[in-house]
């Protein structure tokens, strides 16, 4: 197929020293995600799935192998370039929401654009548009400490999407939500996927993984079948 690859990882390694021993969080991961796919990465705790996501996000540097996201070779980027990668090419949603506590929702959503150098008026407009698209307009001007967990995670998704990233990354996004909100969130991800968004989701929950188009299983830092 000639669809460009959103993520292309080859023999990815992430090794770090822990005391006198070395730990391989990733021990040679080869993976490809095509544009427009919804892929779930599943595995037990310690399988390296979060590390894989962090490498794709540019939050961790691999110690071996290659990784291309949206065509860009991440190993060649310096810290400043990786920061730009995080604000423009990927958008990440965390289990713990990770919104800034003392800012309003719309300011949080606009934050990646602020770091990307977008002007205030434009980035707030784009943030509001996105919140409207996700049905969150009513909460746009509230401070984040006034929102429920489900609302916070939706706001986090809005923030992840505001830079129009090539790929949306989600690390156990339903981990801190109750089952109803969790289901609603996965449904939202499916809807976004249906609209063309590439999604890479990490989870330990098989039921959630089943909602994705394809599941990749990991164990001990490797992809397994």
């Amino acid at each position: 197929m000639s669809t460009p690859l959103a993520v292309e990882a080859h023999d990815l390694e992430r090794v770090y020293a822990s005391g006198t021993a070395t730990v391989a969080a990733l021990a040679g991961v080869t993976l490809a995600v095509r544009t427009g796919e919804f892929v779930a990465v599943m595995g037990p705790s310690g399988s390296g799935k979060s590390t894989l996501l962090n490498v794709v996000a540019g939050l961790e540097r691999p110690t071996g192998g290659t990784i291309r996201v949206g065509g860009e070779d991440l190993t060649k980027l310096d810290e400043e370039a990786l920061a730009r990668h995080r604000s423009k090419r990927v958008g990440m949603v965390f289990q713990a929401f990770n919104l800034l506590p003392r800012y309003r929702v719309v300011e949080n959503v606009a934050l990646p654009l602020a770091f990307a150098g977008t002007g205030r008026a434009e980035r707030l407009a784009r943030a509001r548009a996105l919140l409207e698209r996700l049905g969150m307009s009513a909460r746009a001007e509230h401070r984040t400490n006034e929102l429920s967990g489900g609302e916070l995670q939706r706001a986090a998704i809005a923030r992840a999407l505001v830079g129009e990233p090539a790929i949306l990354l989600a690390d156990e996004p339903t981990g801190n939500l109750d089952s109803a909100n969790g289901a609603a969130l996965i449904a939202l991800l499916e809807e976004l996927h249906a609209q063309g968004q590439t999604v890479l989701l990490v989870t330990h929950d098989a039921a959630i993984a089943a909602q994705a188009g394809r599941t990749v299983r990991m164990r001990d830092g490797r992809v397994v079948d």
Partner: protein
Amino acid sequence: MRASDLLAMSLGNYTRARLRSALTTAGVAIGTALVVLLIALATGAENNVRRSIFSIGDLRLVTVQPFQPGASGLSAVPRTITDDTVTQFKRIAHVDGVYRQFDAPLGTVVEGGEDATIRPQGIEPGAPVDRGDLLAGRHLAVGDRAVAIVPGNLARIIAPSAGGAVGKRVTMRIGGAVKLGSTRIGGSGTPRDYALTIVGVFDEQASQTSMRIPLEDALAAGAENRGLTPDALRQGTGYSGIAIEADDSQNVAGIVRSVQELGFSSFSLKQVVEQIDQGFGVFRGILAGIGGVALLVAAIGIANTMVMSVLERTREIGIMKAVGAAPRDIRTLFLAEAAYVGLFGGILGLALGVGGGQVIERIIRDLNPRANPAAIFVVGPDLALGALALALVVALVAGFLPARRAMRMSALSALRYE
């Protein structure tokens, strides 16, 4: 990230942490106010001292004395100032005028009674000593002989008023016994009388000289008193002093050196002023140091507060990095917060220092109504800008390491921080 966004975000963080920012800002304000107050008071004190010095005399004058340079008082070695010497003085660079002086022996003004003791000073027309406002009459002019310019107290003995003394003919008696205060001093040589016309009267409060007569008259009286010719007196005893006028007070030091090289000692007000300037320079430095210590303490407070601030916002820093904040953005954010402390603290401190100084000045003036000093408390634009810049620099230096620590944090570990 855009500069305007960085500054706005930092300002937001600064204002959000109300109590903490208020405390660190207050620390900087106090340190700045102290620096401003101390240096302003030192500057005012210096100005007042200079003002009193300036009122004593002209800064361009170098007074040459008939002694060798070095020792003074009883151990001074005499040297004769001759016409040759005067010619040499005239050749020194930047010399505008050379004026000879000869002090005739003590005498009295007969018409003034035995209290009218005088020390006639023979001067040349245009000499620096014979300038300035007169109570009446005129200064010495070229070609004047047998005239005198007398002090006001002498004029009032002779005539009912200073103005009335102008035009009066008096007799100057040189060489007889004179009364100095309550002591009688035996005369030197035979008393001789000289007829003089008073042409001018000066304010005895403003000038130290006794009575001014033409140089030639003084030389003639001095010569007759000793039984010499005026020429022999010039060569032998020499002049009592020379007033050298520089074209600019900046050149006085050079002239003093040249005079010293020619073998004579001299006195100049300018050099006194320069010593005072040096002294005040050291004084100001010490005061600045004291104020600096206060600012140092404030800086330590800022650094401590920022270290804690960075630690508390670890998660926040991780989040910002995760959504695209470059390391330099993080550092700039925290440095800008420190800069706001310095900026607002500096402005507040400057206002406090200026205000406090005005209060102090008002109190001092109220307590000393008769003294009328020049401004006691002087804040010039250099001091104001310097103090602001200092506050800003101090804050930035204090915030540098905490900001760097924030910049270097690993985003992932920051995100995991509870």
